[in-house]
């Protein structure tokens, strides 16, 4: 039964939005495909940018304190606090407030060097003591943004500061993904310790950092207005006078608001709207490939997927290419492993991967004496469309599937914690497979959200995360991809894209050109963003 009230209405709104988007896209016609930015020229100073946010981005109820922001995405925090490190267009780590990092002691020690002379928006210094204070605070918090979810335990020395611009992190074991984990955690955002202590509870509403913008006003989960921080350490930056984040009810109204010029940029996830925006001459669309592909998780602890033949049947019955081409306008990238094209160690092809083969699927289903599957997922556009497609494809192989798109995050969590689920359509991976909602999150035997219970794989995951040698890590993750494929643990579907849509006058990395999404959400480089006048 469809849920009543606002949630049900929102579901209907989502369906109506998708339908309307398809209709408008269908009526749009046109053959031009203008997606690139115009010749930008030198950045111009001044102007205001209104950036629209919806879905998970639109919830900053927990506030904008680095250590307690809940699951608040970093799009706001990047602007207020800046970043110690960030990813550049080629996916390499680029120091920002930090000047360098270095592994030592076989990967057990990480040394962070800081630029000197940086001050927070309250005038206090951003030095080694401030960074160490922040790291210790982040490690002690309940926030999922805490690095504690990824980092190994700290050694007896913990965090040390040999001088005012050097911070040393001492782990108990080698951890090659330390910087990736830092970028995707609250440690990357440094709050002013003096402001935290002075403002108390108010800090989360009006935080103070050393980033390119400072807070003017904050109506929680509705509108956040920022202005340029004149003391930002990069001379002449940021370019914008003002940056505003406004929440909106979904992709369709957001797209329309950009067309009216009331907002200048937005990140869209609805494929039909992204396609429509690409045909609009007044817009720039930068397609940002995903770091995390969609996967069908199979619970190997209980029937029917404790039988390898049932898992193989799912692999053979699934045709991701048909979905990519016919349902998502060929926007999504094919993948046979656990990172998307923008992630580290991406592999589009895995040797021996079971591709679509209806005859083999039918044969396996016959051997099993039939196969009935319960498959659940969230109820976003991509999930609901994919669920229906999977049900149809699997039916052709004789697999009877019950699909359950669920709008309620809590119920989804309870499905996993209840351990009775059979199959789930979810996102897997992260920029670095070792961190966040990456491989351990979905495949470790002890993880809540894992359907795999394999100690061999556990060890492989641990080994791959520990090395500081990128080449060695790549080989280990290739071995893991092959192992998961051989064991038929989880068929991968595709890596989705986010369309960064902006008016032609807007420029900047993440707004009009693609940069990797370390946290899974768009996070433009706000200090580089600018608007052409006239």
């Amino acid at each position, binding site marked *: 039964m469809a849920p009543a009230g606002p949630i049900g209405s929102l579901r209907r709104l989502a369906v109506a939005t998708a339908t309307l988007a398809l209709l408008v896209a269908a009526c749009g016609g046109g053959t031009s495909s203008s997606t690139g930015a115009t010749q930008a020229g030198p950045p111009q100073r001044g102007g205001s940018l209104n950036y629209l946010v919806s879905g998970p981005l639109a*919830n900053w109820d927990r506030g904008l304190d680095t250590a307690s922001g809940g699951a608040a995405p970093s799009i706001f925090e990047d602007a207020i606090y800046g970043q110690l490190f960030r990813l550049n267009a080629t996916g390499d780590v680029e120091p920002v407030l930090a000047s360098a990092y270095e592994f030592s002691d076989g990967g057990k020690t990480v040394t962070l060097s800081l630029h000197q002379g940086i001050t927070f928006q309250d005038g206090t210094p951003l030095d080694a003591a401030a960074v160490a204070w922040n790291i210790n605070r982040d490690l002690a918090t309940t926030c999922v943004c805490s690095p504690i979810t990824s980092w190994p335990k700290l050694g007896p020395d913990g965090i040390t500061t040999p001088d005012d611009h050097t911070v040393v992190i001492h782990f108990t074991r080698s951890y090659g993904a330390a910087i990736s984990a830092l970028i995707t955690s609250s440690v990357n955002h440094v709050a002013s310790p003096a402001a935290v202590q002075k403002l108390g509870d108010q800090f989360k509403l009006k935080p103070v950092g050393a980033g390119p913008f400072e807070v003017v006003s904050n109506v929680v989960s509705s509108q956040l207005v920022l202005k340029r921080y004149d003391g930002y350490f990069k001379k002449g930056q940021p370019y914008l006078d003002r940056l505003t984040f406004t929440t909106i009810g979904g992709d369709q*109204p957001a797209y*329309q608001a950009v067309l009216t010029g009331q907002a200048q940029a937005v990140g869209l996830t609805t494929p039909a709207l992204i396609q429509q925006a690409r045909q609009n001459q007044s817009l720039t669309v930068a397609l940002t490939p995903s770091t995390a592909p969609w996967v069908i998780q199979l619970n190997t602890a209980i029937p029917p997927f404790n039988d390898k033949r049932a898992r193989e049947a799912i692999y053979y019955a699934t045709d991701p290419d048909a979905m990519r081409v016919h349902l998502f306008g060929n926007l999504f990238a094919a993948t046979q492993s656990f990172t998307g094209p923008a992630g580290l160690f991406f592999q589009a092809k895995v040797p021996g991967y079971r591709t679509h083969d209806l005859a083999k699927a039918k044969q396996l289903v016959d051997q099993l004496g039939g196969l009935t599957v319960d498959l659940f997922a969230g109820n976003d556009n991509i999930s609901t469309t994919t669920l229906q497609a999977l049900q149809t494809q699997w039916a052709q192989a004789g697999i009877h599937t019950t699909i359950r798109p669920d709008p309620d995050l809590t119920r989804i969590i309870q499905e996993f914690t209840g351990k009775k689920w059979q199959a789930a359509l979810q996102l897997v991976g992260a920029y670095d497979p070792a961190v966040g909602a990456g491989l351990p999150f979905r495949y470790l035997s002890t993880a809540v959200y894992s359907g795999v219970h394999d100690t061999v794989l556990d060890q492989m995951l641990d080994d791959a995360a520990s090395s500081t040698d990128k080449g060695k890590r790549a080989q280990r993750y290739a071995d893991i991809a092959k192992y998961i494929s051989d064991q038929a643990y989880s068929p991968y579907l595709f890596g989705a894209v986010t369309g960064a849509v902006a008016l032609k006058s807007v420029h900047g990395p993440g707004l009009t050109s693609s940069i990797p999404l370390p946290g899974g959400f768009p996070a433009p480089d706000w200090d580089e963003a600018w608007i052409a006048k006239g």
Partner: protein
Amino acid sequence: MTATAAPAVSADRLIGRVAALATSPSLRLAARRLVIAVPVLWGVSALTFIVMSVLPGNAAQQILGVQATPAQVHQLELELGLDKPAWLRYASWIGGVLTGNLGRSLASGQPVTAIIGQRLPITVELVVYALAVSVALAVPVALLAARRPGGLADRLSMGISMAGLSMANYVLALLLVIALAVYLPVFPAIGFVPLTESVGANLRSLTLPALAIGLPLACFYTRLLRADIADQMQEDYVVTARAKGVGPWQVLVRHALRNSLFGLLTIVGLNLGTLIGATVIIEQIFSLPGIGQAFLQAINNRDVPLIEAIVLVLATAVVLANLLTDILYAVLDPRIRYGQRPD
């Protein structure tokens, strides 16, 4: 003597007026309704709390998201006091309400009264504007249709109103934005300008949301009013007025419409709940920082104190609107005297 006698007379008059007011049926009705409203509002708050309690999960799990470990969730539950029994949390909340303290939002930690105080005026303005739009459109169209039942205007207005009734207001909202903000940039597609900044800009920022809510309502009111006016036109007093040579428009407006407005008034009062419900979605689409937007976010966050407070405020508004409708009835129609025997 005269100088002292005058105040005595005034005092007597005042006492007489107060006494008359105290025995006023309308006032007695209001007092009775307000007394009845207390258990109604308590029931609403208790039911809301029960519903939120039986839903799976809680604020801690919802706030921390899917990546949180059970230990992290448990720690936040302790911080938010969610480990206490549900009845104890409700008792504590209701105790606070009785002393004027609606508590703090579980998600943001802000005082609930501050959140409501910041957002309620926007929603109230939107509701009033939508109501005004719906009535302002419904009355003339209904008159035009009832002027000649079965005529072109009648058929056209009934057809349009049927189409309007069939359309969900969030679909209408998207279409209005395409038409009146994208193609014809007359109104803003998103955002809110406070009344204190500019009256004109404020009204422009609320026009499309008000139309999205008000147009379907106008369609409903039009059909209702048109049918009622058509009935009134068959009444004896209308025939008498016509026989006296009163013009057709005068008969419609001064006689038939006047009596039909009672029916409309009832429906408008009863519809207030629907109107408020529509703001939840419309505020999302138009990025209005009203109470509907906060309500939806609170539900997503399982933020029980904020949900309870918003429900209480909205339920109070509905109760008061219905009370006001009843009082207006008595004021407008001298034949209606609540609480008095027919004789």
